[in-house]
């Protein structure tokens, strides 16, 4: 088991945002997280990554069999968890390449990754400064591609991205998740999506529905998304597979 979350209850500023959540992800699997705004999806990703402000009240997070519930963020990153942020901060005066060079010194692979995302010109720009919605998403993916984590947490990778760029982003995620490999696939993903568009590019193995901080349904992601589109989140939650 790559990621094993058991009975996880999380508070943000005294308010419970996740309640008794269970989630298991095996190596090579891609899971999708559905849910309304404010249902706790981003909180779950932030808690897995270890951000301050997300206080684990109960439960445990295991990664590669190790209890990481109380690990600092960078220790989780070092063990192979990576995340793309929905609204990352701007880092004044630090070029994107300056950051990437810290965790990946292979110039050739960095340049290739940047080219595949049509982001070469952005390497010399300050991190996220003046980036459009689509550029932020691509820059986040570039950092992940060069960081090469085993578990990839993607928070709405397609939101605010035009159709042309969705294809580019879709290809990049496919590569990150090693979808080109039929066997021996080891990288796993947990993806939040609202639009479901990313499902057209990335074959997902399992879907989960979060409502009011609780896991309410799990199943085939395409079927779940179809139900949600047709009848809404509440109906999907009622199926209780």
């Amino acid at each position, binding site marked *: 088991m790559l990621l094993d979350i058991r009975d996880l209850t999380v508070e943000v500023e005294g308010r419970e945002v996740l309640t008794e959540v269970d989630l298991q992800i095996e190596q090579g699997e891609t899971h999708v997280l559905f849910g309304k705004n404010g249902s706790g999806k981003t909180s779950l990703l932030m808690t897995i*990554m270890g*951000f*301050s402000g997300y206080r684990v009240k109960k439960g445990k997070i295991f990664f590669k069999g190790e209890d990481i519930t109380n690990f*600092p*963020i*960078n220790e989780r*990153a*070092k063990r192979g968890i*990576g*995340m793309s*942020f929905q609204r*990352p*901060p701007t*880092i*004044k*005066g*630090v070029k994107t390449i*300056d*950051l990437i060079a*810290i*965790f990946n010194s292979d110039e050739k692979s960095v340049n290739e990754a940047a080219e595949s995302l049509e982001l070469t010109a952005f390497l010399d720009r*300050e991190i996220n400064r003046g980036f459009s919605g689509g550029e932020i998403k691509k820059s986040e993916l570039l*950092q992940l591609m060069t*960081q090469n984590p085993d578990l990839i947490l993607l928070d709405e990778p397609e939101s605010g991205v035009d159709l042309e760029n969705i294809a580019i982003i879709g290809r990049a995620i496919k590569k990150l998740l090693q979808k080109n490999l039929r066997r021996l696939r080891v990288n796993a993903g947990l993806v939040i999506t609202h639009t479901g568009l990313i499902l057209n590019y990335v074959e997902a193995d399992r879907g989960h529905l979060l409502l009011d901080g609780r896991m309410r349904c799990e199943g085939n992601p395409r079927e779940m998304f179809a139900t949600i589109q047709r009848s809404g989140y509440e109906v999907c939650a009622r199926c209780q597979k």
Partner: protein
Amino acid sequence: MSEVKKRAEAAQIKKAAYGMDIDLSSFRKDAVPHAYDAKLNCLSGEEIKTMADVGIIPAGGLRSGSFLQMDHSAVNCSAFQEGVEVMSSAEALQKYDGLKDYWWKAVDVVTDKYTANAELAFNNGYFIRVREGIKAKFPVQACLYIGEEGLAQNVHNILIAEEGSELHVITGCTTAPKLKRGLHIGISEFYIKKGATVTFTMIHNWGEEVVVRPRTAVWVEEGATYNSNFVCMKPARSIQMFPSVRLKGENAVTRLNSIMIATSGSELDIGGRVVLEAPGTKAEILTRTISKGGSIIARGMLIGERPGVKAHLECSGLMLSDEGSIRAIPELDGRVAGVEMSHEAAVGKISQEEIEYLMARGLSEREATALIVRGFLRVEMVGLPDSLKKEIDRLVEESEKSLL
């Protein structure tokens, strides 16, 4: 007695508008003279290292001119390019009939006790001039060095960029490594004539009990550009300066960048004032300050006197410890309708969000903090040649290491 001297005498005890008041009598007035060193081969290894830390290359390579003053003596004045003049201001006063169009013209001798004292106890300074149409190939460097404990050094500098000329100046102000206490008063009057471009980079690196009172005024004529980059990474006991740039001619442009750090026990009151006096003039003031226990006042003032002038002021402060303080005081003074002036000021500690974002890429908290501080101090120094940019980046980086 000359008229100037009489006025100076009358202003001898006049307190400055800003900064702590300094008892000038507590500093020594007389220095042991240093011999002229034509080839700059009499400097000790330690002196060479101290000067290198403020961007001064003793050998004079890759420079179009060089000036070195130790205590009160002009130890070396050299110019390596036709049309570039470098000499001590004492020599220039003699050679050019008292520099009557320039001496105490941009700065008023009765501004305060420091300007008065610089006249009454004059200890040299530099005179740099680049002739009409000449583009200096390399930067001209000027170093003002205090080596004697407790000494007052009162310099008066003149810089003239004649019409259409181009010049980079790098000034390093520093003290001997063992020196604790000293006083540096520096009068600087710069004249940037029609169509000329001057980039002035000043690096301060003082002993911890040194008091510094620069008084700088710059006149910028039609179509001319004055860029200033000020770096103060190793703060003194007290520095107070409020250089003033007058954009006197149409379409004159200025940009003033400052980065400074105050550690415990030091007080920095540093600003910049630009008066936009002519149509089409533009100004930008950008200040980045870090307090690690010291107190900083960062002033900025833009005065718009003609419709359509454009100016912006940005002042950001980063608090790296719970002690110390940063006060940002941006002022905009529009005197006619139609001026376009704006400012942004921010003071705070490093955002947790930024640190954690970088930690999610595997950086430790310490590494993340260092990267953010480095980025914060990475001000785009306009107008600098690449080699000088690299030198300054290196100096800033070294200071960062000692800061964190």
